[in-house]
């Protein structure tokens, strides 16, 4: 038997289904290419959209980049650091920290506006946090 007490996050079939539904809806609303939900220590929890062979290194790097930028923010006196945005020529990456500190990562091209991505990710972040918290507390 797996010992659930010692592992901190158990992704249940039902929880993953709920999360995937939320992410799929978010993807429709934002026209994102793909969306990855990354656990704060760098593991992927869920992904939707275009298949990419790089979800594992992407998750590790997203968690690292975000953690590092948040530390920088702290050092310059900013404590409310929840969002990171990188704008490229073809691709944009929007990362938003949930209240569980897990990272909602949206990769999109120029078609949707950043404003829409911002608003829509904000709208789902509460629901996503709740799904994760429910799995964390399930024993």
């Amino acid at each position, binding site marked *: *038997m*797996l*010992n*659930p007490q*010692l*592992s*901190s*996050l*158990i*992704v*249940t*079939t039902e929880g*993953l*289904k709920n999360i995937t539904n939320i992410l799929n809806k978010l993807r429709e609303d934002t026209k994102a290419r793909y969306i990855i939900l990354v*656990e*704060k*220590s*760098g*593991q992927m*929890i869920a992904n939707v959209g275009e298949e990419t062979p790089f979800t*594992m*290194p992407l998750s*590790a*790097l997203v968690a*690292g980049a975000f*953690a*590092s930028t948040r*530390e920088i923010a702290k050092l310059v006196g900013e404590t409310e650091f929840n969002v990171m945005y990188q704008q490229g020529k073809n691709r944009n990456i929007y990362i938003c920290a949930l209240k569980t500190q897990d990272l909602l990562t949206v990769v999109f091209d120029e078609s949707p506006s950043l404003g829409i991505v911002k608003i829509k990710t904000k709208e789902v972040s509460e629901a996503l946090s709740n799904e994760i918290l429910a799995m964390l507390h399930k024993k």
Partner: protein
Amino acid sequence: MALINYSSREIHCKIVYYGTGLGGKTTNLEYVHKTLNPQIRGEMVSLNTANERTLFFDFLPLDLGSVQGFRTKFSLYTVPGQVEYNASRKLVLNGADGIVFVADSQMEKMQENIDSLKNMEENLAEYSMTLDSLPWVLQYNKRDLPNAAPLDVLERTLNTRGVRSFEAVAYKGIGVFDTLKAISKEVLNRLT
């Protein structure tokens, strides 16, 4: 922290290679990457300085087969050993399920090993973890060098808790897989 996915039937664990600068942490991962079949290991990502020292971390994902019907996936990370990179070292430790402490066997590196081990305990404490609660193993690397300290000196100095320890010559691969097998087994034992 381990992530157990009942939907895909996968267990994901994070193992961190810690230790002094130039001790051979990156070399361990490079050897694993070079040796394993691409079907069971992913690409290695290295965030380096211009002179090949680790700046933030190395990352190597592995698929180590099945346990009780779950595929076990390990993410190996190294930290930067250089003293001044403590902020990034601490970030990489976040969520570690197991640690390999890579000690440099050279006599003159003994104090650096001691300091690095102490630094690791301090950083773990920030995540409310201790060396008594977390699976970890020791690797005494660079056994090939003439100035390597005798094994019993290393054991007495660094292994006061009596964890499993391995002699290694990482660039030749000696001890690399023994170390990895031991830590992955200990991590899985905790979970199951």
